[in-house]
């Protein structure tokens, strides 16, 4: 009797242990399978424009003319690639000094005020949906640029402005963490030598945290590069290389957003759009790779 109870108990907890292991393993397997199939599907679809439709790499990556309905149809994606890079780089350039200053303010200058006002402000910015950024960009920034500069106000400048605010929270939080993690002895050593705060920041703090600060910049840029709707709303969507920052153009994401729904799955134009998605995906790999590399440097 006692023994049979013992036996039943053994079975019960072994089954329980097994349930837990199987359930959690299944979850992780599902996650891994999802990631692999995502990469697989986007890659195969993305390559089909080269393989099935026989478009050359040179035409897509070197062509400056996007005329899918033309005779013959032209699929030069260079304007989109240039549009994506210029908006995201410009956004990072605007946002980097702002975010680093914000982090310095919160960690070094006025931690109390920073925590009370700046921190919540930045957390809130992080929570605002991208379509809202797009909407505000369209109703405030675009008219503003239209009044000041020649052109319609739409374009790279408007896109970068909107994006720079969007990526501010990412960059700021990483910069803040990096600065806060600095050993106190480092700064004290500098102050002990009679350096002013700015000298300490410029000569000791910023150089030491540079890899981490760069990580934030790259992550911000990655987010800007992949953002679709907010950019699409303010970029103008003309498929050509612009002559100024205030002239309508397109990005990879805006081209996909705009045309994917209007093309037939399997058509040449549709396949080329998937190639654009493939470029986005490959750039994600590049960004993750750079971030990992920077993190290794930061930990050294």
């Amino acid at each position, binding site marked *: 009797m006692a023994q049979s*109870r013992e036996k039943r*108990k*053994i079975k019960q*907890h*072994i089954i329980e*242990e097994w349930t837990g292991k199987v359930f959690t393993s299944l979850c992780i397997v599902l996650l891994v399978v999802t990631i692999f199939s995502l990469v697989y599907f986007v890659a195969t679809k993305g390559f089909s424009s080269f393989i099935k439709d026989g478009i050359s790499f040179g035409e897509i990556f070197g062509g400056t003319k996007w005329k899918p309905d033309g005779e013959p149809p032209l699929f030069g994606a260079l304007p989109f690639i240039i549009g994506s890079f210029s908006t995201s780089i410009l956004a990072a350039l605007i946002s980097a000094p702002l975010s680093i200053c914000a982090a310095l303010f919160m960690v070094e200058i006025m931690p109390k005020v920073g925590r009370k006002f700046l921190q919540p402000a930045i957390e809130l910015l992080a929570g605002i949906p991208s379509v809202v950024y797009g909407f505000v960009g369209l109703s405030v920034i675009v008219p503003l640029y239209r009044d000041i500069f020649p052109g319609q106000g739409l374009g790279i400048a408007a896109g970068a402005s909107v994006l720079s605010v969007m990526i501010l929270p990412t960059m700021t939080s990483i910069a803040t963490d990096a600065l806060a993690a600095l050993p106190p002895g480092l700064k004290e050593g500098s102050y002990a030598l009679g350096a002013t705060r700015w000298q300490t920041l410029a000569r000791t703090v910023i150089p030491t945290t540079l890899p981490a600060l760069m990580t934030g910049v790259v992550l911000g840029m990655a987010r800007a590069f992949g953002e679709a709707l907010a950019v699409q709303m303010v970029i103008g969507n003309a498929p050509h290389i612009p002559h100024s920052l205030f002239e309508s153009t397109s990005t990879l994401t805006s081209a996909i957003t705009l045309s994917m729904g209007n093309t037939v799955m399997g058509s040449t134009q549709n396949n080329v759009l998937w190639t654009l998605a493939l470029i986005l995906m490959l750039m994600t790999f590049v960004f993750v790779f750079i971030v990992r590399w920077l993190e290794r440097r930061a930990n050294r």
Partner: protein
Amino acid sequence: MQNIELATKDLSVFYGEKQAVKEISLDFAARQVTALIGPSGCGKSTFLRSLNRMNDLIDGAQITGEIWIGDENINDPKTDVVLLRQKIGMVWQRPNPFHKSIYENIAFGPRYHGIRDKKKLDQIVEESLIKAALWEETKDRLNRSALSLSGGQQQRLCIARSIAVSPSIILMDEPASALDPVSSAKIEELIAELKREYCIIIVTHNMHQAARVSEKTAFFLMGELVEYGDTSKMFTNPSDKRTDDYISGRFG
């Protein structure tokens, strides 16, 4: 001959390349307190944690040798550690009650082991608290959080929690070192009480405590067992020079 509850044979523990415990063979008798003493880092805690396979949790820890309970070598990968750990209670240096009520802290284990009857559980809770000398202080507030107790009370609760699943062996890893002197004395009284029922193995860095509570003492140094014997003899007339040095406070 005394009844041997637990015995190790050539027990070694490796952390990666480093050997923390070196081929220890020791017998632990039932209804007796054995103290493991030695300077910090001597491997006594690591040895203790091997006895209920707690070192399994540490990545890279490797344990060789044999640990016998009855006719079973429990240092076997096939051993069911869940069942094993029901037979061996454990108390840590810092009290670690669950973030639950006092009642739940004690009822949690027995309920898991199949006791669903509320009356029976009430009875176990009461008996365990009485054995741990905590009943009088807590009987009116069993539903309050265990974290509302003082440090010494929390430690006695942890002891009550471990005896609630009716083990035969209790491992204690410096159970009184994080407590004030009064609470510490209470724990020692409790150990003296508990040894009438359990085989107790206690790691301590407090020489006086070892002398007060234990029948047998084992002295560890750099992962090796230097000397083992009756506590009274160890503290008055140790046979090894190193034991003498340690006990008389020349190092450690």
